[in-house]
């Protein structure tokens, strides 16, 4: 697998902040791979996502290097799609679903509105929105949270980017919808052979479908490597803490069972 991007000693400090949000991060991102960036709040995982996507606010101080294979950084919206945690704030409330999904295709694929809307309908079908032709004319508030996130994914992918960054894209959804969206991302990324950068606080979710993981804490990279070997034999205590803190249906209950 070839390298998409080499991050070398990257530090990011937001304006007027005394401490860096990311400090001395060195990491390779493989083209066509699925990298999970795992961390708790304040770990710097979203800062890394925004740095890669060129979405940092003005006057953010960066040191170190990000070298993209091919020389130039991916163009946001064209080469790189981004799905945010909260679909209700990433969609414009006064534009129809069709206009928002078509916009990327129109801008970046040089399509007219008519063709762009056809592409939008096709994308809505790809993200398994039922009655896509009707949803095209709907507004975000008429959809459920899960449907809105599907629309946001369709919009992010409308211009056929080669990189998709999903920043806690399923965290605001309930577990049933989360599982559906993860399965959808899995399919879409495989079909289009995209590079997926999946930002999450949930190590179990990442364990299910990332081929590499990078664990972050307090703005620093704790460790990174192939998912299977890193989770089976973590080198760092913090990774072990995350694994031990994970709760699933096999975790021992804290209370005695009810008698009846």
């Amino acid at each position, binding site marked *: 697998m070839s390298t998409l991007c080499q991050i070398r000693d990257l530090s990011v400090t937001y304006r007027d902040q005394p401490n860096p949000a990311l400090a001395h991060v060195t990491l390779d991102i493989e083209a066509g791979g699925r990298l999970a960036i795992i961390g*708790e709040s304040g770990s710097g995982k979203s800062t890394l996502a925004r740095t890669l996507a060129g979405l940092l606010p003005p006057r953010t101080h960066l040191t170190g290097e990000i070298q993209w294979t091919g020389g130039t950084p991916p163009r946001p919206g064209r080469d790189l799609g981004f799905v945010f945690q909260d679909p209700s704030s990433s969609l414009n409330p006064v534009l129809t679903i069709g206009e928002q999904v078509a916009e990327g295709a129109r801008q970046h694929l040089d399509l007219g509105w008519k063709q762009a809307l056809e592409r939008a309908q096709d994308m809505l079908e790809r993200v398994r929105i039922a009655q896509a032709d009707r949803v095209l004319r709907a507004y975000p508030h008429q959809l459920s949270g899960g449907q809105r996130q599907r629309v946001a994914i369709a919009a992010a992918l409308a211009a056929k980017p080669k990189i998709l960054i999903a920043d806690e894209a399923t965290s605001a959804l309930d*577990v049933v*919808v989360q599982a559906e969206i993860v399965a959808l991302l899995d399919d879409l990324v495989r079909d289009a052979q995209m590079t997926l950068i999946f930002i999450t606080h949930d190590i179990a979710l990442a364990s299910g479908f990332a081929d590499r993981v990078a664990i972050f804490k307090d703005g620093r990279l704790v460790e990174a490597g192939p998912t299977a070997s890193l*989770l089976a034999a973590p080198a760092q205590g913090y990774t072990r803490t995350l*694994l031990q803190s994970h709760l*699933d249906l*096999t975790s021992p*209950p804290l*209370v005695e*069972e009810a008698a009846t």
Partner: protein
Amino acid sequence: MTLLEINNLSKHFRSGGRDVTALDGVSLTLDPGQTLGLAGASGSGKSTLARIVMRLLPSDGGSIRFAGEDWLALSGKDLRRRRAKIQMVFQDVLGAFNPRATVGSVLDDPLRIHEIVPKSDRPRKIAELLDRVGLQANLADRSIRDVSGGQRQRIAIARAIATDPALIVLDEAVSALDVSIRGKVLELLVELQRERDIAYLFVSHDLAVLRAVSHRITVMDGGRLVETGPARQVIGNPQSTAARALVSAVPRLRIQTPQGHSHEP
């Protein structure tokens, strides 16, 4: 004796000219000192149920008996006095506090409103509450915005236990917490339950959390309770479509250990 008994509760909302049934014939019971996990996907009606129990929303039909009284018939002074016995902890703790409040004033409010201890004794009681939830007493002077998310959720728990409640409704109370903090908060809740015989109605879409703390679990779908039973039974052998969907959606940690043993079911 049963602490909470809900019978045939119903609730409808009008939304965009359509009639939406949020609760449809919901019946359940909860004993003192026990936890009932209320599971369900978004829109299943679980938060509506929690809000009716809290008397934050009126019901359209059905009854609730709490501690032997007709809970929905109480009003005015009687309701205010008894509200001390049912407390609530929300997911979004910052939104549940006055943003200008200090930690101390957050805990002072219930002690004053419900006349739990005389004014001169309140600072001591606040220190005791903070200590009980694992926080330093000197946190009392800090702004509620200047403490961490985990500390804030402990303060919400301290506020809930301040009035010596018989029931606490926990609405996604640990869902916003980092995993390394979540386990400790769940342990604290279980300790407080054992120590004070508090019943919990624990609302969550996350069955893994409910499995950890619930004696019984009930699953809600489309405003109805579709399955209720001991936690082990509902998780291990779900009968309804909704329960099976929730069980299978819980992310499994997939680890291949060197022995070839897998955590994956």
